[in-house]
């Protein structure tokens, strides 16, 4: 999964989609996922990275990352 190239992402978690004019906000863990996607990381690498950075269990992380990626699709922020 990749984030569309034209999506602007600020360091504070503000996102702008120039194609639709929609703006979004994301929290720090969400922003970290966006950054890793931008770096071209796949889901398993993202999970490994987040597990190293955040204090949580693997199952929780896996479920939440799946949910977050689904929401990126739902908001049409991704490209194949």
């Amino acid at each position: 999964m990749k984030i569309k190239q034209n999506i602007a992402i600020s360091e504070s978690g503000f996102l702008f989609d120039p194609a639709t004019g929609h703006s979004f906000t994301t929290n720090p863990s969400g922003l970290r996922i966006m950054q890793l996607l931008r770096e071209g990381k796949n889901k398993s690498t993202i999970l490994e990275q987040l597990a190293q950075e955040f204090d949580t269990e693997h199952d929780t992380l896996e479920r939440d990352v799946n949910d977050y990626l689904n929401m990126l699709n739902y908001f049409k922020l991704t490209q194949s």
Partner: protein
Amino acid sequence: MATSKKPYERPVIQRLNAGVTGKFGQPSVTASVSNIDGNSVDALIQQFGSPLFVISENTLTKTYRDAERAFTNRYPKVQLAWSYKTNYLDAVCRIYHRLGAWAEVVSGFEYEKALANGVEGSKIIFNGPGKSAAELEKAIHNQSLIHIDHADEFYVLRELVQQNGQSARVAIRVNMDCGIYPQWDRFGFNLENGEAFNMIEQICSVDEMHLEGLHCHIGTFVLSTQSYSIAAAKMSQLALQIKKQFSITIKYLDLGGGFASKNTLKGSFLQGQDANPSIDKYAEAICSAILKSGFNENELPLLILESGRALIDESGYLLGSVLSHKRLGDGRSALILDFGVNVLFTAFWYDHKISTTQVHGQWQEDMVLYGPLCMNIDVVREHITLPPLNKGDKVVVHNTGAYNMTQWMQFISMRPAVVLIDRNEKPHTIRLRETTATIQAQEKIPNHLTHG
């Protein structure tokens, strides 16, 4: 060197909606509640299980004292009667009785509970439309205050007192137009069409019946204090009319209950905490109306109040746990909690205030709260804004003291334990959590189904 990990919060992304804000403005942020009367929520759940009802004796006592003060500051003769149907756990009832409350019961079952809780028969008010002959006989024997609800009850009562030659202390239940829509006219006898006065005439014709009071129950969660003012004025005029026509001094006026608690009714624009009348406003409306109605100072009737909800709602909490976070088809978040509408019956009426137990960041999201029942109606809140919660997180539902611990249903899952935190902040189990054995103890299997 080991590096410490950052605290985790479920990743959330939200679309920003620019433009005019909705009529509800910004969503309110509810502060987390990790502690109830000196007991941590986590520790209570660990010790007594989840979900769990908790009752604060401190809050209960303070609310009772505040209500008592609100009325006694304005009127010389006041008696509160604890409404058993609101919460008839024995420990709860006994606290009210120790504070000075009489018992107000609406069934033989509640009547038995009141006696077992040590209430003198003469301090039990027997309301309700479903009293049996045997229950009435007991109430006559105990000199309880019997509030006659309908003509058939009067005839049964008349037969009993005439057969036994024992006198009964009675009142009639009066319904009237107090400006409330829809008007409650199902309890007692209507004032405006003359039915109430006709019944009073009949009661006065029976030597063994002593008409001591007048009772009304104008509604529930009544937000208009003016309605109580009208009810109190009409009841007073009726009492004065009885005095004039039958030379009977009405000893008490019972204005029933129906005062709102601090809960927020579904569909209400403002939060109940801010918008609902205080107990002082109800007291002012009722006491002023009686004092202005023309009673001689030495013949002022005793004022009885049977408020339940307003006295106990705030002292009750329901603690629970998140079973899962899930995503709905339209992108909304939803949480499945370990308690449903079978336990939190009042979720059908109120948008309950619900808090988390941990301090979260600034992130909040709109979500739906579901219970664990496999039923579509099992919705605890259709819409609420909460931090991103995950499996295992705890929540606290506020203002649950009234009706939940009586109207709850054993449906699909068991009813939880109830813990009372006493005035020294010590928790006590006052009702055990149900088990499969609790339910099965009531069942019987016919012989032909016992084998093979």
